[in-house]
């Protein structure tokens, strides 16, 4: 195959495609892992913050008492604290860095899958471009040295999606045996991903619907057989945890339980932007105005007609006093969900204009060019004197901002004008829609992470081949998307600039 020519994989059976360019993929994956390894070496010793501390607390309790606790306001799936507990059991507190090293190695799975998607959907050249983009994707790569779940989660989610797409390919070609095995494997990987984050709980049924619809020409029985397999596999893989929860709580909990608290945070008077909220302490130390005072208030202000009173009795009248409080009657997080969901939805329905304005703000926070790498820089989390916090700080922050921005813009172009119809497009569409819709509740740059490898793939497709589809609906779709994207950036522009300045160190 001519590497520079766009292939027509949407019209050709996938089995007829040339073998994946494994040599190039392996070299680029190794290079990406090496870059992440160097970055890890440069940023150590690294302190913990936010959820990192909570994961570690759970791991310490597991190590000492042998039980997995909930987090009072949340009930997270146990996978990541379990991995942490194993690591600190074997290596003591150095186990944190061992796990970071493991994440660096595991990121190769993300890189390889990203390149495979680009190869499958576009071409060999696109795969190489995708690999290079992934290798220098700092917002994504930085998660390898954070003690957040993202690297483990993506290294399960992406292969699950890959096998799902390949299963649809093989089914289209009539290779039922391989399609069945890949659907089974995909379900197992989705199930394992649920042990890390319960995020995919509703994604798998949606994908199953897509699979059933694409298989409808084979008859209802076959469509049902295919679509039910990954769902069933997920159910079986997660069943030990579900049964454990039933034994411990006497109630059924699949995966985890975070909805109630997310509703409290996301459908309430106080606007919380988690890319900038942690900067409060540092801004206070630096004598800078708090970022929330810079925000465009129309998108964050409390619902009209609400006069905050000191509802929580802490002696201060705060924005949060205008909203609704957590449910205190139920002592367990898993029992608070339904009532908090009711409260949140009632609050939203009661204030429709506020709900609309603040949902735009959520989407704005989803597509922010900021990332947890820039957040770490802005918080001065990286060790003083290290090159990452010193000479390379500016270039690295600019690289992170540029990659986030470019992959969103060029990824949109790739989606509308380069990506052609087929299983890959169907799965990407479902995933993009899922991330966008779930971010209506709570959003931040971290919630965009499941999309980042996909955006890299689409960007690579665009860079490698430019426009291949110029139909009117697609051009209009791209224009509308870019317009919305720019509008959403404008909404959070003041906070983005302030946070970026802190990350660059130009406010000191």
């Amino acid at each position, binding site marked *: 195959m001519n590497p520079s020519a766009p292939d027509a994989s949407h019209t050709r059976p996938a089995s007829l495609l040339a073998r994946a360019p494994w040599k190039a993929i392996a070299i680029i994956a190794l290079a990406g892992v090496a870059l992440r390894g160097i970055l890890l070496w440069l940023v150590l010793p690294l302190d913990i913050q936010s959820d990192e501390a909570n994961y570690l607390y759970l791991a310490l309790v597991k190590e000492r008492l042998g039980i997995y606790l909930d987090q009072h306001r949340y009930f997270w799936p146990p996978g990541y604290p379990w991995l942490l507990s194993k690591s600190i059991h074997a290596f*003591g507190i150095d186990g944190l860095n061992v796990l970071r090293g493991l994440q660096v190695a595991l990121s190769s799975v993300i890189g390889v899958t990203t390149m495979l998607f680009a190869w499958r959907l576009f071409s060999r050249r696109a795969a190489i471009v995708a690999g290079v983009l992934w290798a220098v994707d700092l917002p994504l790569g930085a998660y390898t040295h954070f003690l957040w779940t993202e690297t483990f989660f993506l290294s399960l989610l992406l292969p699950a999606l890959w096998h799902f797409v390949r299963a649809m390919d093989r089914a289209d070609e009539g290779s039922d045996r391989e399609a069945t095995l890949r659907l089974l494997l995909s379900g197992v990987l989705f199930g394992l991903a649920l042990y890390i984050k319960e995020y995919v709980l509703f994604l798998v049924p949606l994908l199953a619907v897509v699979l059933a619809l694409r298989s409808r020409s084979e008859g209802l029985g076959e469509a049902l057989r295919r679509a039910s397999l990954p769902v069933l596999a997920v159910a079986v893989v997660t069943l030990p945890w579900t*049964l454990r929860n039933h034994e*411990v709580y006497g109630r059924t909990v699949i995966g985890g339980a975070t909805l109630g608290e997310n509703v409290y945070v996301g459908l309430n008077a106080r606007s919380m932007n*988690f890319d900038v909220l942690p900067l409060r302490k540092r801004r206070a130390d630096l004598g800078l105005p708090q970022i929330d005072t810079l925000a465009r208030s129309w998108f964050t202000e409390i619902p009209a007609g609400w006069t905050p009173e000191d509802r929580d009795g802490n002696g201060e009248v705060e924005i949060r006093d205008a909203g609704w409080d957590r449910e205190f009657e139920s002592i367990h997080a898993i029992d608070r969900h339904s009532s908090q969901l009711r409260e949140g939805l009632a609050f939203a329905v009661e204030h429709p204009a506020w709900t609309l304005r603040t949902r735009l703000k959520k989407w704005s926070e989803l597509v922010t060019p900021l990332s947890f790498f820039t957040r770490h820089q802005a918080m001065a989390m990286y060790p003083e004197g290290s090159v990452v916090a010193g000479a390379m700080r500016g270039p690295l922050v600019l690289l992170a901002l540029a990659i986030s921005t470019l992959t969103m813009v060029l990824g949109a172009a790739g989606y509308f004008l380069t990506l052609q119809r087929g299983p890959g497009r169907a799965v990407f569409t479902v995933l993009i829609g899922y991330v966008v819709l779930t971010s209506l509740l709570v959003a931040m740059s971290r919630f965009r992470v499941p999309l980042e490898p996909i955006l890299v793939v689409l960007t690579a497709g665009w860079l490698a081949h430019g426009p291949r589809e110029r139909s009117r609906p697609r051009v209009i779709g791209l224009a509308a998307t870019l317009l919305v994207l720019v509008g959403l950036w404008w909404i959070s522009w003041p906070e983005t600039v302030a946070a970026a300045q802190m990350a660059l160190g130009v406010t000191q």
Partner: protein
Amino acid sequence: MKPRSWIPHVALLATAAVMVVVAAAKHTSTEEALRIAFDGEASTDERLWAAHLAANRATTREPRLGDALVRSFLAADDERLREGALTIDLSRHAIHPPGTRPDAAPPLQSAYVYAALEDGEYTPHRVRSRVLFRRKVGGSSVGGIRRMALPEARWFMDSLRGTPLPPRKEIDRYLIERSREPVNLRRPR
């Protein structure tokens, strides 16, 4: 495997059925869990697990757990059992005296964690108790105020491995500095 086979579905359902049967066979009733949690003859692991079950199955505050079991655990010789009384499981069942603020910390656990140091030094158990009680997630009503930081995690692991802890002055200085962090600058996730 034949094309378009339902065998994988059947195998998955059979696996699920086996898991459900095994789980049902290993089930511990709440009454039994309560009995084991209070049983001084039971092993520490058995008592901790039984308390975990009883505390999480109860849907409202249960005085037997928040008071009697906490006292029983805190009076035990085994340090792990005493530390088990400080986690969220039993802290959320705390019984507060009338007139106490609703977000007040669990009184029995607070008294234990802040009791005067024996011999003037932090023992490994005292350090672990402090971390377990004060750095849990969930807010003051369960005793946790601020998230854990790396030095505390290091001390916790050192205490388990028998590595000497820093002198009292250093630990006190650290804890005082942490307690001075403004509460309204809440650490986000």
